[in-house]
């Protein structure tokens, strides 16, 4: 059995170069309105 299965690697650091365009959705406009759920938003600048 493999010891380590990596589901995703280094995604945050990789966004330092290209990120920050601000075109993505504001989190409270999606469904919440009472909580902050930024991590589930999608990037619009892939």
């Amino acid at each position, binding site marked *: 059995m493999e010891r380590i299965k990596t589901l995703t*690697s280094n*995604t945050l650091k990789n966004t*330092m170069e290209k990120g920050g365009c601000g075109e993505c959705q504001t989190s409270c406009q*999606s469904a919440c*309105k009472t909580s902050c*759920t930024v991590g589930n938003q999608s990037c619009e600048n892939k």
Partner: protein
Amino acid sequence: MVHQYKNNGYNMVLDVCSGSVHVVDDLVYDIIEICENRSKQEVVETLLASGKCYGKEDIEEAYDEVEALRENGQLFTEDVYQDTIVDFKKRKTVVKALCLHIAHDCNLACKYCFAEEGEYKGRRALMSYEVGKQALDFLIANSGNRVNLEVDFFGGEPLMNFDVVKRLVEYGRSREAECNKKFRFTLTTNGILLDEDIMDFANREMANVVLSIDGRKEVNDRMRPSRNGKGSYDIILPKFRKFREMRGDKSYYVRGTFTHYNLDFCEDVIALADAGFDQISVEPVVAQPDCDYAIREEDVGRICEEYDRLAKELIRRAKEGRPVNFFHFMIDLTGGPCVYKRLSGCGSGTEYLAVTPWGDLYPCHQFVGMEDFKVGDVFCGVEKTEIVDEFKLCNVYAKEKCRNCFARFYCSGGCAANSYQFHNSITDCYDIGCELEKKRVECALMVKAALSDMSE
């Protein structure tokens, strides 16, 4: 910083600052737990002495694999973002999203409503077309180079002023080409006034619709009665089902609130799923402890168990080929938001503002009615820049409680309004909310692990 936990038979390891997520066996899990300040030899000796029956060669081999992750920047990475990329004070922000309070009035009397039956501590009022038009002009003028502009029709109940909604959509569309903007309109409704014409309109024009319903009939009707005290479930459910059917592949959510009275809210998610909805959000109520329905400190353990139960149920349904998307378990591991977005939070008070029926601007819908937070109006623009600056500085590094929290890149510091409600400060945290958010992140990552098993 590493966060590791066991859930549903999975050993999960989250490397917080790189965003890497690993599923590991027991040996690797144990090594990661102790290896940070120990040499290879010390790790081997510690585990050999632990009574866990690991062989020396296995430990050495697994240790090397852990080291490889570290060398690849996927484990024990440092937080390099604070000093290198964001100067929050100098950050120039533009407005890109408005929450239009199209009606400060409601045809339901939901007991937990933060808008107090739609009136937000003020008077009943409907937004006029002129105020709404000015709000859209304000948004266009203050959105800099941003192309995608978001406008949520909110309330109270926005369908009580549907004619204005229609006219504003028409006006917004008429300005898109000349201004090089794209409006994404969304609608949050309790469903009472929905009819086929409105559904048709919404399916043409609304990028997303949020349909408020709490789940099981008895749960919904207890907290979401009409003004004459009767439950709303039997009126809204058939309309929402019809709407869902007509909506096809377009975005929607059925969205409920759970309270102290339905800590078994997994049943409500199941009830909504069984009623034919596959995009579901059911969220904890945020209320002061003196409210009978408020979530209390002692409810947290029970709610966390319920999230575990829900996670398993969602995995089961996915395996059976009838997946349900639960909003609070959504994490996009590969295409999620950039670190800038994750650091700057929800954007309230800067990118996102709420507009009252008479055109006043507030940092977000939850601050509406708190006079001290009024930042300006759609006619004169943002005047109290000191309030905007305060929100600009509101980020994970400004919050003591977030600095060392493993979930900080997922909730981005949490909700400023909740923080203010409980601590009179926008840079604190609503503690119960934090506990639940951490649990949700754990469940969400575990679900990813389970679904990735399934696809192999």
